[in-house]
């Protein structure tokens, strides 16, 4: 290869993406990015043409979640850039590695209110880990390398690269450049060097604190998945025999069917997970961030617990809850070091006697399981039942994505996540419409795995058009549409906290016709109304692999998600299912 090859910036951009190992990108062309779409024709990179730029962003997120590799998005300037703001923010809050290339008006036109101009780097500054405006074609390879480096190291996150048209357009002399394979030395990032190794003294102190704890809980978050630490976590948990709660972002990071797994804590967590944290004397937080949906009212959160907090981002340590030991570092590396330190001080044998704690926990598990009542003849389906049937009729490595709302909580509660990277949802931003594009991205990244998008009818109507993308690009995802004809979670809040005054939450019982709509988008559409139809419909959907399938489950709008910690209340005030409300805690 001629290393001194002359080329135009557009070719260099595509070549730099190939050099970064990009196999797939999600995008939609337009005026300012046009010159980059020409060399894409000759590139090894597969481009998925989306129907809306927001879809491209969520697909890239789903791809990144499922594969661990950065998701890549390419869109044009102006409205296309503003359309990716939501997925950028989503990726920022959930620490998803993502690189987004946006077209920009020619450099000389910036600031003139040119056609399809917007201040993309200004707008996205608050929702990206970092962004770049590239001003010279010669800077393209090094900027792309820096973008991938920043997106994938330290606390991962989205990075945006804004590219003015003149530096990629071969008819413009400003696009001329000499190709070079950018190296780390070319990146010029004097202010960026994430620390990954934990402080050995703090790790030793943590090991001692853990050994002495009577009622410890491992509180694990999405950082476990980001740092590929699931195996290390399993080894540590089994050695010290400490129960594990997995947050909404960490479902699957520790197997649900494991004896030590208590499931999801938080606002809609199960009783045992929430209460074990509440009564704990030591929370060992690994890659979690004490989100308000986990802690409830902060003053009342785990009042007797000391805190060991491990996070790659030092700004998380002590941000919400004061820590007793805060360790900055990559979760996997710190857990491995911690396991060694625990072994050195005696491992399993050196642990405090926790038999009373274990029996208290199993007592809660027995007394307060997740419950619901099966529907009666003629009633609409119970969403929990649908989730149980989905779970029981799919292999355990099925990838499940979800939108945001009641269906998301049911999916997290009722699925059994036994493998990491099988659960993909929008945790921090809570972006309705996430599930379908995320499922497409996941399926593109893991084509051999079955991918189910669990969606609500409100969410479905926000991003359903990406099912056209799935059909045309031959990405056979499956959608479980939980249609209760309402914005269900908002309805639940209005029922519980607004005296059942339902305001603007009813969508429609008959419109749209989801089966016809799905068929129009090239999918198979199936409607399910009674319990005995559920399993056969799932079986039928699982047999179809040449196109996407949408199964519309007509679910009961009166069903509410329990348990629930009302907003602003302490986790000790967890509201359990009505059938369990008299029980002594």
């Amino acid at each position, binding site marked *: 290869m001629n290393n001194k090859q002359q080329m135009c910036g557009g070719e260099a951009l595509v070549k730099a993406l190939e050099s970064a190992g990009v196999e797939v990108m999600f995008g939609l062309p337009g005026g300012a990015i046009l010159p980059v779409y020409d060399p894409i024709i000759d590139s090894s990179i597969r481009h998925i043409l989306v129907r809306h730029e927001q879809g491209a962003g969520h697909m890239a997120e789903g791809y990144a979640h499922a594969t661990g590799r950065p998701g890549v998005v390419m869109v044009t300037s102006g409205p296309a850039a503003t359309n990716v703001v939501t997925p950028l923010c989503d990726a920022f809050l959930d620490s998803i590695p993502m690189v987004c290339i946006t077209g920009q008006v020619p450099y000389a036109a910036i600031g003139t209110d040119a056609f399809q101009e917007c201040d993309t780097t200004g707008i996205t500054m*608050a929702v990206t880990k970092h962004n770049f405006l590239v001003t010279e074609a010669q800077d393209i390879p090094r900027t792309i390398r820096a973008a991938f480096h920043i997106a994938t190291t330290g606390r991962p996150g989205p990075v945006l690269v804004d590219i003015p048209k003149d530096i990629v357009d071969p008819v413009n002399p400003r696009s001329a450049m000499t190709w070079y394979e950018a190296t780390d030395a070319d990146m010029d990032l004097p202010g*960026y060097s994430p620390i990954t190794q934990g402080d050995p003294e703090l790790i030793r102190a943590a090991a001692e604190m853990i050994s002495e704890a009577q009622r410890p809980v491992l509180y694990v978050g999405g950082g476990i998945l980001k740092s590929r630490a699931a195996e290390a976590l399993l080894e540590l948990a089994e050695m010290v025999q400490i129960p594990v709660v997995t947050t909404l972002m960490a479902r699957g990071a520790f197997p649900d069917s494991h004896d030590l797994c208590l499931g999801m804590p938080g606002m809609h967590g199960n009783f045992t997970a929430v209460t074990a944290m509440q009564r704990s004397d030591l929370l060992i937080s690994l890659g979690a961030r004490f989100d308000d949906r986990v802690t409830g009212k902060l003053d009342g959160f785990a009042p007797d617990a000391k805190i060991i907090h491990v996070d790659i981002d030092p*700004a998380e340590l002590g*941000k919400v809850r004061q820590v007793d030991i805060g360790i900055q570092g990559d979760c996997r590396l710190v857990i491995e070091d911690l396991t060694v330190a625990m072994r050195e001080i005696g491992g399993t044998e050196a642990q405090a006697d926790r038999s009373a704690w274990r029996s208290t926990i199993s007592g809660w598990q027995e007394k307060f399981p997740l419950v619901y009542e099966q529907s009666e003849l003629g009633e609409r389906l119970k969403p929990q039942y649908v989730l149980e049937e989905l779970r029981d009729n799919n292999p355990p490595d099925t990838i499940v994505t979800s939108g945001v709302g009641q269906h998301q909580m049911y999916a997290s509660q009722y699925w059994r996540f036994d493998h990491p990277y099988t659960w993909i949802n929008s945790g921090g931003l809570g972006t309705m419409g996430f599930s379908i594009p995320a499922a497409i991205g996941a399926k593109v990244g893991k084509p051999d795995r079955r991918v189910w998008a669990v969606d609500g009818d409100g969410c479905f109507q926000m991003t359903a058009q990406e099912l056209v993308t799935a059909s045309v690009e031959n990405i056979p995802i499956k959608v479980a549409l939980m249609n209760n004809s309402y914005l269900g979670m908002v309805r639940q809040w209005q029922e519980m906290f607004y005296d059942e005054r339902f305001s603007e939450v009813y969508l429609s019982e008959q419109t749209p016709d989801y089966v016809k709509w799905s068929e129009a988008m090239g999918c198979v559409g199936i409607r399910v109304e009674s319990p005995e139809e559920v399993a056969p419909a799932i079986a039928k959907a699982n047999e179809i692999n040449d196109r996407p399938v949408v199964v519309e489950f007509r679910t009961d709008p009166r069903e509410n998600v329990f348990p629930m910690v009302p907003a602003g209340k302490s986790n000790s005030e967890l509201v359990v299912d009505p059938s369990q409300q008299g029980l002594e805690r």
Partner: protein
Amino acid sequence: MSDPDTFHTIVTTVENKPGVLARVSGLFARRGFNIESLAVAPTDDERFSRITFTVDVESAPLEQVVKQLNKLINVVEIQELPPEDCVSRELMLVTVAADAHHRRELMELIDDWRAYVLAENTERIMLSFSARTARLDEFEECLRPFGIVELQRTGRVALPALD
């Protein structure tokens, strides 16, 4: 007299690139931190600029401010300077009314405070004065009775104290 203990100076070395000040000030705004004063200028190394802030640590936890600043890719170095560990100065330019009746009295004040006369005409005198922030406040109060026509302060800059 020293500045209130709650005012801490944060000296950041940042890459000298377009938009860096917007990133830093945007961070303060969206995390709800209030900036008391802000001074920006290139350093002796043209690749870097220095941004010096004063923040009221009662309005925001200093540790969070520093940690969040550190996350900005273009921020290279941060020094926290509590009041007792730094030497700080601020510059004031001020135009004061100075008619014939009060001119003599004003000139005496200027001499006492070791301010500099930069320009004058029959009605006004323009001064420069540099000192610790609290001294600027005091001087400003002394000038006020004469009639302040225009006043501009730079915000504080600081370096670590010598041992």
